């Protein structure tokens, strides 16, 4: 995603960042518009709570705005802001501890055409199984919340957001081997939590 997606945008991130660094608030607004959906997905899938996600996003962009002058462009802007987002979300989760309330987001209607959703909702003999979207959504969220924070982060970045191992290793400041190892153990855990959907 990311690199390719940002390159196809009409104005490059680097140009917007430079303008924002020189005091152009409209340029920063454009960066907020561009990255809000992606960061929202990141934070929401780590917290499973809509209100927390909205509050954290405000804090993440506020911090990014304050720190923008010190962004030297050594990494891409999306790596930089993702790193801020991941760190702030992990700090928030540590403070929140185990006391949280899951609130589900709206599910895009496009899910009904997703081959995996069709596969899940269709049994071997071709009849529809009694699995509705909300139940599946709830089960997936519960399974994600059973993972440790580190494992949940790599699953969110790799499986849901589609980032590469190398990009994740830069964001989390760990080796690619660590990313692969965390993914392996996370998938194994998810397999046991969701085994009735997998079989």
């Amino acid at each position, binding site marked *: 995603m990311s690199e390719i997606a940002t390159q196809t945008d009409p104005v490059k991130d680097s140009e917007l960042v430079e303008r924002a660094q020189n005091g152009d608030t409209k340029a920063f607004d454009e960066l907020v518009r561009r990255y809000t959906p992606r960061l929202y997905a990141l934070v929401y*899938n780590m917290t499973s709570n809509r209100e927390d996600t909205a509050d954290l996003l405000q804090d993440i962009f506020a911090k990014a705005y304050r720190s923008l002058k010190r962004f030297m462009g050594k990494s891409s802007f999306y790596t930089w802001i993702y790193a801020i987002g991941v760190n702030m979300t992990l700090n928030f989760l540590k403070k929140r501890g185990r006391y949280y309330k899951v609130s589900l987001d709206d599910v895009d209607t496009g899910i009904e055409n997703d081959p995996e959703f069709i596969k899940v909702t269709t049994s071997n003999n071709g009849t529809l199984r009694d699995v509705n979207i909300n139940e599946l959504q709830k089960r997936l969220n519960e399974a994600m919340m059973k993972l440790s924070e580190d494992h949940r982060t790599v699953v969110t970045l790799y499986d849901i957001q589609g980032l590469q191992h190398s990009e994740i290793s830069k964001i989390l400041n760990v080796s690619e081997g660590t990313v692969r190892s965390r993914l392996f153990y996370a998938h194994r855990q998810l397999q046991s939590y*969701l085994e009735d959907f997998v079989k």
Partner: protein
Amino acid sequence: MSDFEHIQNLIRLKRHEKPDDSFVENFLTEFHQRQREDVLKRSARSLVWERFTTYFSDFFSPKWAYACVGAAAAIALTFFALNPAPKASGDARQAIAKSESMTPTEAPQVAEAPKTPTSTPKDNFGVELPFIGFAPEGVDIEPLLISRHFAGGYGDERMHAISGSTLGTDLIGIPFDEAKESSAAAEQH
């Protein structure tokens, strides 16, 4: 398809969970409002402090902490290597001078003579030696030092003064009188 791939595809369904379309614009409006409120609410001191901590947050990574600890240790080692021994205090020097004075009657004379060294003597290794006082006038100190050297720290005068005790022997344990007789017999042979 392996079970792992199936799990990945299943988890990927979470991409369809999205906020509604108006979320981004509402979020941006709220972001601007919060920024304005933030500036009005907070004191200048807290804003300065936050800028300060934000600026230094990147510097306090573990590798910098290790570097700082290493540098501090190197400075401490260098300091102690250049200053190996603590200086003796004035009281300690005076106590040493008193204990080393030759006779109780001479000690006050030494104390009365207000002669102080202009510099502290040092040995070949640069270590400061304790000042033990000046010899009284008219006393030749050289024979005294030589006798101390060969008699293991005691002058011959003092050795003879206590020769009536078990110390009236030579260095290998033979009494002085017997040693003289045996050396005379050896000369006659």
